[in-house]
């Protein structure tokens, strides 16, 4: 699969799982996308560690000190899997995977060259020495425990936005 | 050609008309049915309840009566499945009977299997009347894999309208010994099946297994419904 198709397939499948999806080609567009999805006065947690995170951290007027008090986490994630529209969050490099779990809104930035075609490709790549925590995230949290009626937003995020760069 | 007819204990004892209809159908399509007089029961009731010895006793009688090379035809999906699927297991320790069991399994046809695959009866322009719906019995459908044949036959009936039933292959609750062991659940399942049948609006319900049809009849009777319940053999034979 070529890169463009991979990105498209990934976002298509992510959207089917009720994730908001955005595709941008540069930092400028990334900032615009963030401006659209993040409410202006929300306390935002952004780790500010990766280059992309550093590039966007300053645009948020209200910054949360940590993810437990944030309304939104904006972060770059490890990668993605096109087959299922899945984000990969990894604890490698001191990343706090819970940052994308506790706040009600998770905005995940993922680089195009970090998309795996299939689940097999992904697990083949990580099966040797997995980090402490690898979490595959597909859409926001959900349940159908009451009468099998789908309810989005349970203990994890109620809203997931993915920005593909 | 000669075929050996296995009536089945239920048809023999309670629904002989279905057996006679089977004979007429086979003759119409060039098969001369021979009814080995010593036949009894395929042994399913005992086998399903966990009584291997009793099941073996019945199976030995079957293999004796139906020894040979001719096709065996039976108006029952569950009995054909019993012979095909479970007889070899019963004789795993008796090589000669094991061989006969395997051979019998290869020779046996459920009636609609024979009518469609061998006799091409669905192309013969059989006649029918009224509206018919179909209950797909569990062993017939899932163990034998007979799904299309009854449908082909029913939709070929000129003058009859076939009305498919939702969840046609959902269990009717007969389950052989199940109806005796858990009669309340059995009745509840039969009631639901009866409701599905009634919902089609058909004046007749048919199927390939008398056990199911008997259970369905009882449910319809309890509900005060006057839908006709007829074995597919009878329905098809009426159209000859």
């Amino acid at each position: 699969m070529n890169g463009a198709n991979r990105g498209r397939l990934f976002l298509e499948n992510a959207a089917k799982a009720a994730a908001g999806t955005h595709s941008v080609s540069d930092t400028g567009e990334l900032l615009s996308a963030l401006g659209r999805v993040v409410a202006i006065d929300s306390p935002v947690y952004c780790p500010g560690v990766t280059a992309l995170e550093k590039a966007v951290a300053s645009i948020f007027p209200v910054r949360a000190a940590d993810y437990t008090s944030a309304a939104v986490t904006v972060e770059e994630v490890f990668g993605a899997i096109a087959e299922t529209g899945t984000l990969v969050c990894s604890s490698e490099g001191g990343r706090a995977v819970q940052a994308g779990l506790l706040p009600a809104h998770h905005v995940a930035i993922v680089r195009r060259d970090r998309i795996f075609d299939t689940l097999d490709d992904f697990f083949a790549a990580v099966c040797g020495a997995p980090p402490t925590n690898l979490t595959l995230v597909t859409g926001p949290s959900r349940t159908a425990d009451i009468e099998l009626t789908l309810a989005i937003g349970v203990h994890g995020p109620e809203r997931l936005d993915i920005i593909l760069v | 050609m000669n075929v050996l007819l296995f009536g089945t204990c239920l048809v023999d004892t309670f629904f002989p008309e279905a057996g006679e209809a089977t004979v007429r159908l086979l003759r119409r399509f060039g098969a001369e049915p021979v009814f080995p007089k010593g036949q009894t029961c395929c042994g399913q009731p005992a086998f399903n309840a966990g009584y291997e010895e009793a099941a073996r006793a019945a199976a030995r009688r079957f293999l004796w009566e139906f020894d040979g090379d001719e096709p065996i035809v039976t108006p029952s999906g569950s009995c054909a499945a019993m012979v095909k699927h479970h007889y070899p297991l019963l004789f795993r320790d008796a090589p000669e009977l094991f061989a006969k069991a395997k051979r019998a399994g290869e020779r046996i046809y459920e009636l609609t299997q024979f009518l469609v695959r061998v006799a091409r009866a669905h192309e013969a322009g059989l006649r029918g009347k009224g509206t018919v719906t179909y209950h797909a019995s569990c062993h017939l459908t899932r163990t034998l894999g007979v799904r299309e044949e009854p449908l082909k036959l029913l939709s070929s009936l000129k003058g009859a309208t076939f009305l498919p039933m939702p969840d046609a292959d959902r269990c009717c609750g007969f389950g052989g010994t199940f109806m005796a062991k858990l009669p309340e659940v059995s009745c509840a399942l039969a009631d639901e099946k009866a409701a599905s049948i009634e919902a089609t609006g058909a004046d007749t319900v048919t199927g390939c297994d008398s056990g199911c049809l008997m259970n369905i009849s009882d449910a319809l009777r309890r509900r005060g419904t006057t839908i006709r319940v007829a074995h597919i053999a009878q329905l098809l034979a009426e159209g000859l």
Partner: protein
Amino acid sequence: MSPGQTSLAFRENTVLALKDPALRAAMRQATDTFGTKRADAFAPVAGLEALRDRASAIREDVLSNLPMYVERFVASATRAGAVVHRANDAATAREIIRKILAGRGARRIVKGKSMVSEEVDLNSRLEAAGMEVVETDLGEYIIQMEGETPSHIIVPAIHKNRRQVGRLFADRLGVPFSDDPQVLTKIARKALREKFLSADAGISGANFAAADTGSLVLFTNEGNGRMVTTVPPLHVAILSIEKMIPSLTDLPAFIRLLPRSATGQPITSYVSVLTGPRKAGDATGAKELHIVLLDNGRTEILAGESRDILKCIRCGACMNVCPVYRAVGGHAYGWTYPGPMGIVLTTLLTGMKESHPLVDASTLCGACVDVCPVRVPLVDLILGLRRRKVREGFAHPAERRGMEAFGKVAASPALFGLGQRLAGAFWPVVRALGGKDVAGRMPAPAKTPLRRRLP
């Protein structure tokens, strides 16, 4: 034998269940919905049979080499920093876990859904030791509040309708009544958030355990599983030994099959792969990870004729299509595991003496065999247990005598013919004796049976 098990009263349980219109309606709606969702989810999947074959083969390999995979897992998980405990039985598992928690002074425990923890009756042991155990999966939260046990292995509160849940929350949480699932979910989110953040320990199960890397794999949707396993400083995972898979590279087959089979989703919202506790340089994970591997009879099952039940990956597809489960719900089965896989596993784990009525809880329709993603031969397993039931003397004496007589009659055409005549002649008597349950539902024998009509 398990405290509170009511499998011996299966028939009575079904009679009660059948008289409960709310339960019947809930079960009908649920199983209809499951059926549609599963079918829709698998419709676009090319090569489903090949996928099932692959998953089945992986599980077969695991069972054929289980002690080896378990040893390998223990070594890998230990290398990754987890403390691994082997629990031979339920009592040992309970005690190991109680001791770990008590040793850390844990008072508030948050728990993810774990059928194995129900199997060993963990909660009551911990509560008896003065700990607060909070079930955080929404379905488990509901039934814990109600004081009930789960009635389905994936959707524990499926027997309840929205009004019942609304009334429960209004009564126990003092919130205004609502029967809107969205509102009820938000109420639970709020109520449980502070429990997660203040818990001393989290207990979870695991869907799979990868032997190569010592990783635990959890398939979840709500986020509670993620909270429970990473937020509190101590994480205790309990799982039964047959949950092994050789390697993380075996996961894709199960990711493609399990969520679709269970709830009709292409993938669960979260698949967590947890390898050891927090290490130097990590900002994620419990500081301590204890893994309890439970046997509780599985090694014995593995050596017997019913071993294939251990292939089960706990997706729930079998119970979703079972006509008996649909009619009576999960509580009737009387123990942790209901439906077709429940018949087999309950009988094997708790013993024929405590469970034998369950082996009759099937019409042998085979719908379960059609949907099992790993090809567990459920009908054959149930038949095997019925044979065992008879061999071990748990069959009703009247039935034994009846079947012995059947064998003689079926072996002899003369006796068979005689039997037909007698049944025909004395049908009213047979009906009266045999009862309305059976003979009452059958027509009288034909005056002339088939064998006397044909040449």
